[in-house]
């Protein structure tokens, strides 16, 4: 089922949680709502579920306005960050709950319920736990049971609120892959909220980046990572080096240094305040004497992967990070405290924005 939200506005007292959000969630996709805490992503999810009401705007489920529909009638499955399993019921009764709560006319007979719960427990690979209580399960198991419980009522939409937020890193990675596989099997329209960019990029078909109650960018994981539309998206997705400066002729002037960049072609006028971004792997280290680039001193070199990560300090104490191949780092023969220049191979320049959320 497709979901659309139109001009959703939500305020909590004086705080604007969502300011005019309009989004399309096409049928069958797994979409991530990604953003820092307090950006309104959970509020949006709860409004779609009907657990929260918007101050204005519409939620359309399959093109039909659901604003007046009660949560019970929206046929959504909701998975909570802290599982929200019924602690006094066994795993089996938890999963059966939604089916048993149906009105007499719609409720399947008990043997059918049993068979269905059994099938769902097999789907989440936990059928051997059906007699246990939630307190006897691990976090990862609890969340899988919570998912089985949500799926039992055959929801048209699956909404997951930071589903892996309370789990440790290893289990989280495992469950991520598992959720992706499950979605590929079931093809149910799903939205999940996360503040973990790696999780969003790895699992979702599409990523919606949110900041301060607004949508910053929507796109495929590759797209939002390669072509960030705003300074916020650039700095939120992955490590980044930021330079503050002004457009100056053929480049960007940062302090006394000049970074070559065709900034004026991008419609920026001479002298405009700008923010320039480069990923760690888009920076190269060159000897101090050369022209161009930013002066910095090496403060640490970490090499425990295929690459070497070098941390540097700029003139005013700013922190920079450069990723080089091991060979390149060895050839440079860097020493701590050595003065060098940073030359970007690629630079993204944005006009300066007050409080871009960075």
């Amino acid at each position, binding site marked *: 089922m497709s979901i659309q939200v139109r001009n959703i506005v939500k305020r909590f007292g004086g705080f604007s949680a969502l300011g005019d959000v309009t989004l399309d969630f096409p049928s069958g996709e797994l979409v991530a709502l990604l953003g820092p805490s307090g950006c309104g992503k959970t509020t949006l999810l709860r409004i779609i579920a009907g657990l929260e009401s918007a101050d204005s705007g519409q939620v359309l489920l399959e093109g039909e306005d659901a604003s007046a529909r009660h949560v019970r009638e929206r046929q959504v499955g*909701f998975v909570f960050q802290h599982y929200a399993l019924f602690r006094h019921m066994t795993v089996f009764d938890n999963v059966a709950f939604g089916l048993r709560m149906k009105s007499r006319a719609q409720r399947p007979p008990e043997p059918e319920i049993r068979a269905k719960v059994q099938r769902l427990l097999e789907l989440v690979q936990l059928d051997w736990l059906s007699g246990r209580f939630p307190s006897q399960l691990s976090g990862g198991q609890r969340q899988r049971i919570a998912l089985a419980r949500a799926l039992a009522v055959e929801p048209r939409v699956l909404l997951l609120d930071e589903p892996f937020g309370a789990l440790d890193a290893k289990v989280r990675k495992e469950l991520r892959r598992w959720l992706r596989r499950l979605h590929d099997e079931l093809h149910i329209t799903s939205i999940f909220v996360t503040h973990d960019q790696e999780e969003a990029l790895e699992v979702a078909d599409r990523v919606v980046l949110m900041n301060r109650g607004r949508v910053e960018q929507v796109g495929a994981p590759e797209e939002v990572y390669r072509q960030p539309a705003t300074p916020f998206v650039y700095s939120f997705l992955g490590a980044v080096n930021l330079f503050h400066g002004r457009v100056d002729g053929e480049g960007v002037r940062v302090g006394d240094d000049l970074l070559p960049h065709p900034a004026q072609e991008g419609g920026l006028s001479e002298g405009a305040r700008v923010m320039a971004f480069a990923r760690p792997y888009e920076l190269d280290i060159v000897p101090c004497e050369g022209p161009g680039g930013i002066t910095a001193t090496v403060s640490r070199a970490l090499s425990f992967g295929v690459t070497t990560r070098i941390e540097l300090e700029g003139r005013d104490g700013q922190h920079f990070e450069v990723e080089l191949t091991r060979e390149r780092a060895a050839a440079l023969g860097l020493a701590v405290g050595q003065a060098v220049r940073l030359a970007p191979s690629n630079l993204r320049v944005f006009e300066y924005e007050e409080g871009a959320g960075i």
Partner: protein
Amino acid sequence: MASPRQIDTDPAARFETRSATREAPWVKWTLIVLALSFFALFLLMPLAAVFAEALRKGWSTYFAALAEPDALAAIRLTLIAAGIAVPLNLVFGVAAAWAIARFEFRGKHFLITLIDLPFSVSPVVAGLVFVLMFGAHGWFGPWLSEHDIKIIFAVPGIVLATVFVTFPFVARELIPLMQAQGKEEEEAAIVLGANGWRTFWHVTLPNIRWGLLYGIILCNARAMGEFGAVSVVSGHIRGETNTMPLQVEILYNEYQFAAAFAVASLLALLALATLGIKAWVERHAGRAHRTAQDETPS
């Protein structure tokens, strides 16, 4: 699963077994003797005295005193007052706790303070309030006497006073419990299609049942033992408006010590039974609480 750790987490045991933190024997024994003698003097002795005095003239006198029509009437009235006050406060308490723990609204803090009011005013004042409202010269007095309704110096007054003084017990017990549990489970139930009543019955109530039971026990103990407020509104009409605590006082003032202590011993027995049930509930509630804590990751 936490059993090997449990020995460790009991700080008293840990302090006692390690020589580095162990006190000298004389300190230990002085403190123990002091505490126990205080306990014996102020708690055990009065309790024992009640039963000793009640049975001083033998079992037959004891039972004869309890079989007195006035004593029986007092017992009956106490049971009626508690039988009405406890269910009423059960409903009010759950409703108030539900409203406070689950919803944000204007005047919430005022409501919480209001619930505590019966704890903070003297029971005698509480009784007087009802006399001022429903007494012969009270606000509604003339209207009530015109319609031949008796509240003060009658059973309705006693029930009203009892409901008032016992109001906070259930609500006070449930509010922190329900606030700690949060509303996620209820939201989950609603998303799964359960209606309000079934959510309450299948999700809310099982989660608060031990706290609720605990509140009911305390509420009942107070309802049966209440003296001050009831004394003001009762009028002390023998066989009609005397509850057990009032009956004890009357008998004592008339120097019928054996009879007074016999009725008092019933109240003491009630207290002992309450304590027993309370300990049992606390054990179960503690277990339920620990499971709940396991459930919520910190």
